[in-house]
């Protein structure tokens, strides 16, 4: 089991290779893709079983990869309590995503499935990477399949959305790449192992710039206001599976990036920018909620609601205490489940009616009772009703925020609780309630077995996480404690580093690198 | 007595005339002749330096330049002929099929 992480990450790649050589038999292709994703999911279950609730990275693999010139990159992977659940979320969502467009995608099924599985490789890789360079590779790798998924199998305006998605994300991540390089040279000779960069004790000025570069990349991905405009476009145009994955996992890359990199790497800058980030998050919550309220397109509404939800996550993370971060992490998973489910729901009605305009619907409850029930549960999960998953995360986020310095922001953010009810219920009312007056809606069929099968695990998770979130929280607690220590440590300036404009010379080989994982001795 | 400077200034002037000719003349052959003028200005510089430094390297260099110039002339004129055959002109204002 030493290579379980690699196994999980690269099973989908094996699936890709298998699909490449297979004949163009759509049913077969779909089946194989589904089987591969299911195998991946089952394999990932073993992670939960064997995961110990400790702060250290587990299932670590560290293999030298590139060693040339002044650089050492390793294939260094491992997970801790923070990434564990995101990995599981990814493997969990994938079969659902594949099933979701089982019939909707009729053309180029082979390419489609290849893209989905490649995307999974990228996402899993990014979550398990403990080497900054490796992380960056996977981070970028995700873009390509997603670009094709939106661009090839998307809606009317798909090309615009796909290109916007790609370039917007690219701009942010390339600046992060420069920051990674700079950080590497600041740390002196060694490799890209992130634990080497923790506790580096950079001076606050440097931290500021590096943090900004990292934060921009992540903020675009999250997306935080005002970098969110690619999201509604991408979501609206993407096929259902694309939207689901985008919402459930890809956006989490941004928030995960903050937790794993931006915050612990640059504690001083984190402290300095906390008010700014919190302000943007609060604006995001209120603003996106108001905008969502007025949307005419269901999918766009859900997309904007994502922006609001992730605002909560950001507030929680930057509260920098146990409750806030745990809440933020839970909220990430919750958002993956409930917003993913919402996109699936939108997909169901879109497949039936080929429209997503709210005004085209009304009274569907009568015609589609099962659908109505599921939609209702998911809606209330998204709204954060106690007993569903959404509540636990949201509550912990707000509690954590309230305990931290972000009290005022938290109170403002709490108003999002009201607004989310407004826009979600209003939408629900207009779609599901009222008279079934449109003749096209009167012949709609209720969900079929496949669709119910897709939604069932999500609904189960909604309740499990809402009623018994303890295992989830317990597994991540030690890692969060460690993260808080790392992110809160104050600046230590015992390492004299050359000024910015001078060449950073390579240290002789064998020179001991900075102590890893521990803060440099304070003065 | 002519000093090094005189040679250098002369070659500088010749080079500039050549360069200017390339910029303002429109006939490809004339332009090519201007380029030859530039090369010869360079040759003059080399020779002057060689003499001044008492060093033969410059003169060798000039031989090479002359040889190469001859080769270039051959190729260049061939290209012009080919072009003229297709286009009926060697005016550089007509060499503008590809632009933007």
């Amino acid at each position, binding site marked *: 089991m030493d290579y379980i992480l690699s196994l999980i990450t690269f099973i989908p790649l094996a699936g890709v290779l298998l699909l490449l050589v297979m004949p163009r038999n759509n049913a077969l292709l779909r089946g194989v893709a589904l089987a591969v994703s299911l195998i991946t999911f089952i394999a990932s279950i073993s992670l939960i079983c064997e995961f110990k609730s400790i702060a250290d990275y587990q299932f670590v693999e560290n293999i030298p990869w590139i060693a040339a*010139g002044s650089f050492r990159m390793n294939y260094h992977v491992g997970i801790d309590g923070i990434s564990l659940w995101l990995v599981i979320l990814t493997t969990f969502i994938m079969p659902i995503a594949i099933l979701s467009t089982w019939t909707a995608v009729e053309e180029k099924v082979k390419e489609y499935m290849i893209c989905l599985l490649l995307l999974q490789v990228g996402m899993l890789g990014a979550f398990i990477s403990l080497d900054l360079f490796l992380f960056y590779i996977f981070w970028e790798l995700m873009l390509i399949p997603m670009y094709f998924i939106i661009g090839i199998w998307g809606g009317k305006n798909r090309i615009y959305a796909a290109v916007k998605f790609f370039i917007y994300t690219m701009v942010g991540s390339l600046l992060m790449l420069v920051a990674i390089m700079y950080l590497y040279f600041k740390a002196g000779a060694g490799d890209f192992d992130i634990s080497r960069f923790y506790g580096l004790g950079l001076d606050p000025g440097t931290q500021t710039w590096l943090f900004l570069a990292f934060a921009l990349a992540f903020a675009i991905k999250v997306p935080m206001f005002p970098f969110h405009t690619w999201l509604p476009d991408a979501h609206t145009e993407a096929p259902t599976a694309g939207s689901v994955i985008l919402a459930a996992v890809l956006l989490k890359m941004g928030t995960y990036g903050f937790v794993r990199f931006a915050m612990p790497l640059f504690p001083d800058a984190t402290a300095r920018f906390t008010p700014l980030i919190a302000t943007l998050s609060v604006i995001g919550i209120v603003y996106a909620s108001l905008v969502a309220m007025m949307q005419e397109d269901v999918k766009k509404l859900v997309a904007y609601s994502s922006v609001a939800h992730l605002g909560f996550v950001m507030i929680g993370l930057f509260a920098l205490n146990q409750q806030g971060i745990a809440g933020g992490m839970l909220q990430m998973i919750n958002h993956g489940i409930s917003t993913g489910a919402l996109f699936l729901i939108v997909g169901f009605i879109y497949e039936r009616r080929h429209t997503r305009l709210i005004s085209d619907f009304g009274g569907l409850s009568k015609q589609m009772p099962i659908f109505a029930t599921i939609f209702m549960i998911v809606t209330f999960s998204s709204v954060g009703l106690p007993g569903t998953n959404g509540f636990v995360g949201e509550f912990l986020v707000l509690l954590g925020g309230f305990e931290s310095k972000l009290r005022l922001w938290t109170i403002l953010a709490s108003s999002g609780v009201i607004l989310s009810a407004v826009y979600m219920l209003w939408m629900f009312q207009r779609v599901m309630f009222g008279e079934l007056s449109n003749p096209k809606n009167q012949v709609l069929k209720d969900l079929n077995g496949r669709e119910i099968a897709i939604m069932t695990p999500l609904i189960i998770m909604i309740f499990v996480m809402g009623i018994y979130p303890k295992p989830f929280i317990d597994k991540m607690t030690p890692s969060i404690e460690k993260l808080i220590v790392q992110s809160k440590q104050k600046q230590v300036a015992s390492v004299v580093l050359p000024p910015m404009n001078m060449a950073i010379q390579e240290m002789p080989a064998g020179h001991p690198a900075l102590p890893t994982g521990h803060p440099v001795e304070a003065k | 007595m002519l000093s090094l400077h005189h040679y250098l200034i002369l070659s500088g002037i010749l080079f500039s005339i050549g360069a200017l000719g390339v910029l303002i003349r429109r006939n490809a052959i004339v332009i*090519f002749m201007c380029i030859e003028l530039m090369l010869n200005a360079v040759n003059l510089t080399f020779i002057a*330096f060689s003499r*001044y430094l008492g060093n033969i390297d*410059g003169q060798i260099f000039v031989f090479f330049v002359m040889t190469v110039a001859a080769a270039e002339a051959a190729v260049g004129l061939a290209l012009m002929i080919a072009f003229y055959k297709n*286009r009926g002109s060697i005016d550089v204002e007509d060499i503008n099929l590809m632009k933007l």
Partner: protein
Amino acid sequence: MELALPQMNFLTIMPETVLSVVAMALLLVNVLVKSKEKAYLGYLSLAGLVGALFTIPWGQKISGFEEMVLQDNFSSFFSVIFILCAVMTILICDGYFKKEGCNHGELYPLILFATVGMMFMAKATDLMTVFLGLEILSVALYVLAGFNRDNVKSNEAGLKYFLLGAFSTGFLLYGMALIYGATGTTKIAKIALAAQNGAVSGNMMFLVGMLLMATGFSFKIAAAPFHMWTPDVYEGAPTPITAFMSAGPKAAGFAAFLRVFIIALPSLTVQWSDLLWILAVLTMTTGNIIALSQDNIKRMLAYSSIAHAGYALVGFTAHNASGVSGILFYLLSYTFMNIGAFAIITIIGKKGEANNNVQDYAGLGVKRPVLALCLAIFLFSLAGIPPTAGFIGKFYLFAGAVQQGYIWLAIIGVLNSAASVYYYLRVMVYMYMKTPEEDFNWVKLTPAVALCIIIAVAGVLIPGIIPNSVLNLAAISLP
């Protein structure tokens, strides 16, 4: 009178010798080969190239011909690039020139001669050798660019290239003359010695000479504002020749540029690094910006190649180990990805250079999925997206700049690559996201072209995923 036999060491120019002999032999053989069977000349030249590849010595530093040439890893590395470039070009030539109806046998010797010229540029340690290598290359290229002599565009490309190339040679030569005047020598090592003397390096003549030489090289590598010829010539020249020109001569230009500036003028680092970063910024930006609005794919790739010269200049500006080994790695990868892309363009194009617009690629992904996938890989590599060699190369280039403190340069560089993504994606938009209008039944994938594409894909992906060996090779090949 004593006849002092100059110290000659033919080992140092072994590959060049092999290639020259093969080329001249081919010229003779050409007379005997029927016009339909000129492909055999290609096979012969391939054999010559592979032979030359094996005569390249590694790990030695041998000076020859009175320090006119220097055989070291640096030159070997570049020789490999040139030979690969020639091999891949020759693989795609036959089909194309048959289609265009001008498969004259002189093509192959010319490519070989150009290769020889490039190799000389890479191992030149004397300005004279630099000049000779450059001219051997240029004269061959002038002809190659205008090789399709019945096509007026090809004529025009050749003529434009010739006029501007000769013009820039004038500047280069004048610069050499002034350096010679200031230092009294044409040997790079000796120039370096002389330049350590403040009186010499402070001499205005020396400075002007250096700058003029820089402009001459800038022309060869197509750095802005000396890039103007590139799009026109690349567009007009026969596609395989464009592929060749975009990869090989650019690498050769960099080889000579690096050799001269890093060895001969290290004491003027501050001065020329100023010049270089300005050139780098101008080049990247101009190339990328203008490429955005190009429809002709050859012209677009011409502008893209300008931009790539800009990226390489970023590494040059850094002139540290990462930067320079980055250049070497990047030029090698660029050879693969660019010639790979042109190989596909070659077979997609119709007779008379038709069908070369981006719009003509609509639906290629549906009709010819494998070809489209390969083109996509090349384009992603050009855009610098992992896991391709293009990404690793860019990483080293920009990391070099960051290491040296040129953070802003690196940032401008990455922003440029973000902008460049747009036009690479545009091709993919047409290939994959538009409905096909044609069924691409004229596209003939001959074994030679397929081989070329396979080499290119391997050359892009393998160093992209496991770049270690190539990077280490580049690291020991610094000048």
